[in-house]
Every structure is written in structure tokens, then in C-alpha cells.
């Protein structure tokens, strides 16, 4: 979800700052403790980088679902009209109920994107 992405990006941003500091400290002081810190943080940044794809690809499938839901919404809308024009009251009522339902799903899905 968006909040997980926000946190991950925030972690990466802070970690690259920290790495820069540690590196700077190392080349200024030539202290091995800075180099150790640098290397430790480097591993963490690599892990965060790997998580980027996982977190972000959740986003991609959510988008696909959302796009397909719009199709379903429009399909049910067309089916409502078709059934309505054929005076098939049970049919168009059912289809319109689907329209209402999928519309509510669309409203809700926006939150996940």
C-alpha cells in the first residue's frame, strides 16, 4: 500500500545520506570504524533496493485490477442498458446492482493506488 512505499522510499533516502556521511568520515579520518559502518549500511541499502521491486510491483497488479474493474463496470452498464431496452426488468435490475457494486469497488480501489 502507499504507506509502505512511502516508508521504504524514506528509508532509502535516509540511508543514502547516512552512507554519504560515513564515507565522508572515513576519507576525512581514515578510521576503520567509519568503513565498517559504511559497509553495514551498504548491505541494508541493498536490501531496501531489493524490496523496491516487491513493494512497487504490488502497485502494478493493483493497477491492472483497477483497469479491469473499469471494464467490468462499463460492461455491466452496457448490459443494464441492453436489458432495459429489451424490457427485461429482472435482468437490468440485476445488472444495475452490479453497476452499483462495482462502482463502490472503484471508489474503494482508488485508496489502494
Amino acid at each position, binding site marked *: 500500500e502507499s504507506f509502505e512505499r512511502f516508508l521504504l522510499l524514506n528509508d532509502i533516502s535516509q540511508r543514502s545520506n547516512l552512507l554519504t556521511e560515513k564515507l565522508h568520515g572515513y576519507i576525512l579520518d581514515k578510521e576503520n570504524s567509519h568503513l565498517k559502518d559504511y559497509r553495514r549500511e551498504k548491505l541494508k541499502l541493498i536490501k531496501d533496493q531489493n524490496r523496491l521491486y516487491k513493494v512497487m510491483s504490488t502497485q502494478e*497488479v493493483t493497477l*491492472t*485490477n*483497477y483497469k*479491469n*474493474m473499469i*471494464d*467490468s*463496470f462499463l460492461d455491466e452498464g452496457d448490459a443494464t442498458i441492453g436489458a432495459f431496452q429489451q424490457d427485461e426488468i429482472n435482468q437490468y435490475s440485476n445488472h444495475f446492482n452490479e453497476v452499483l*457494486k*462495482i462502482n463502490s*469497488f472503484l471508489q474503494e*480501489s482508488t485508496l489502494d493506488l
Partner: protein
Amino acid sequence: KYQYHFVMVPEELDNDYWRLVEKGARAAADKYGVQLEYVGPKQANIEDHVKTIEMSAASKVDGIMTQGLSDEQFTPLINRVVEKGIPVITVDTDAANSRREAYIGTDNYYAGYLAGKELIADTKGKANVAIITGTFYANHMQQRVKGFQDAVKEEKGIHIIAVEESEISRVKAAEKATQILKDHPEVTAFFGTSALDGIEIAQMVEKYQKQNQIYIIGFDTLPETIEYIRKGTIKATVVQEPYQMGYGAVTMMIDLINGKKVTPVVHTETRILRLKDLP
């Protein structure tokens, strides 16, 4: 990038048992290029479960794997989904009268029956039994209780004192176990029919220091259950194969989509596990 897009909808997302089902499903998904979503209620709630399936159908996914939790609601729901062209495979819990293409999971009646026979043997045919089940409406829970009842019904020394539901909730399972201990001091045995029930029963029985007086048989082999078996608080548990259910559901769905013939009912292994069976 992915060939297929499947959705698995369990009754409860962050349930340790269902995480094993997911793990098996992901293994197959990764192997066969399936984009697998694992979505559902954070806590068992049938309305949310139904809605998640409906949203998945509206999202035009390639296949849906879910429990066939109740005939009343799930059979027409599954039928509607299949009518939209999306194949459904039931996992763990069957809705045998729906248009689901296949079921993979335990033979739940038989599993309950095995539990009943084990209790008879372990209690030498004399026990006042309280059953804590997941939910009263779920097909698989009904079948487990039924199987158990059928196994013990001819035993004159076995009396079923109470049957309560935990709603797939640790907290509720503990609460019901405690209530039974207070309301029914004559109870000498518990049967927990979902993965978490036996664990919470054992916890309460230990809390009231009755582990030497009360016999417990549980379900599944979560680490906590295994730990209680080592301790002796739980005497036996009914084994299921959630990982295989998940893995098999995905491979069966791939076969369905590719037009291959699929066995309609696949029972995963179930048996009783005792302390002596542990390494």
C-alpha cells in the same frame, strides 16, 4: 512477465495456517510464472470474504482459489464467478454443490472421524467432551464435528457436553475454553477443530493447571501445537497438508486454464500425530 494472474482468498489473511497455504501457492506461482495475489479479510469475516471474491471477479483475474465456506452464500457466489468465465478451485473447504472446477484439501469428515477414534482409544472410551470449532456455518468445520460425532456415537462412555465456536479467533477460543472449564467442571476432554483452537485450549488448560486431568486433541501441526504435544498438554493432533493444498491449487488452476483434465476432488493426506511420532 507473468503468464497467469490468480487470486487466493482465505478466510483469514494473517492466520498461521493460511500463511502455509500461501507459501505453497507462492512456490508454485514462482515456478510457473503466476502472478499470485493473496487477499482476504484481515480477520475472519464472511462479508469481507465474499466481497474480496467479487472484487477479484470484477478485476477479471484468470482464476480464483478460495474456501467454499458455506453452501448458502458461497455456492451462488462461486456459480456467478464461474458464469463470468473465471474458474474457481476450492481449497481446504469444499462447496461440493457449486460449479467450482475442483477441490483440493483434507477429507474433513474423515479427519473428524479419525479424531473421534483417537479420543476413544486415548480415553479408553470414557470422556466428557467439549468441542471448540472454528465457525458453525463453515462446511469443513461441520464435517469435522460430524465425523467426530459419528466416530464416538456408539461409545456409551463418551459424552459430548458442549460445542462452541471460536470464530477463527485466538481470543475467542481462549474465552470459550475458559467458559467451558467454569461452566462444565465435568469435562475431561477437548477437541479443537481448527488450527488455533487446540492451542488456545491448551493454554487455558495449563493456566488452570488441569493439563494432567484434561485430554486435548487438536488440529494441524503449527509450531505451537507441536510444542504442546512435546509438553504433553495436547495428546494428539490431526495432520493436514496446507503447503500442498496451496501448491496443488495453483498447478491445478494452470491445468484448467490450459484445458487439461483435472481431477475434481483431490484429498490431501490426513492422519493423527502423537508425541511418539515426533523426532
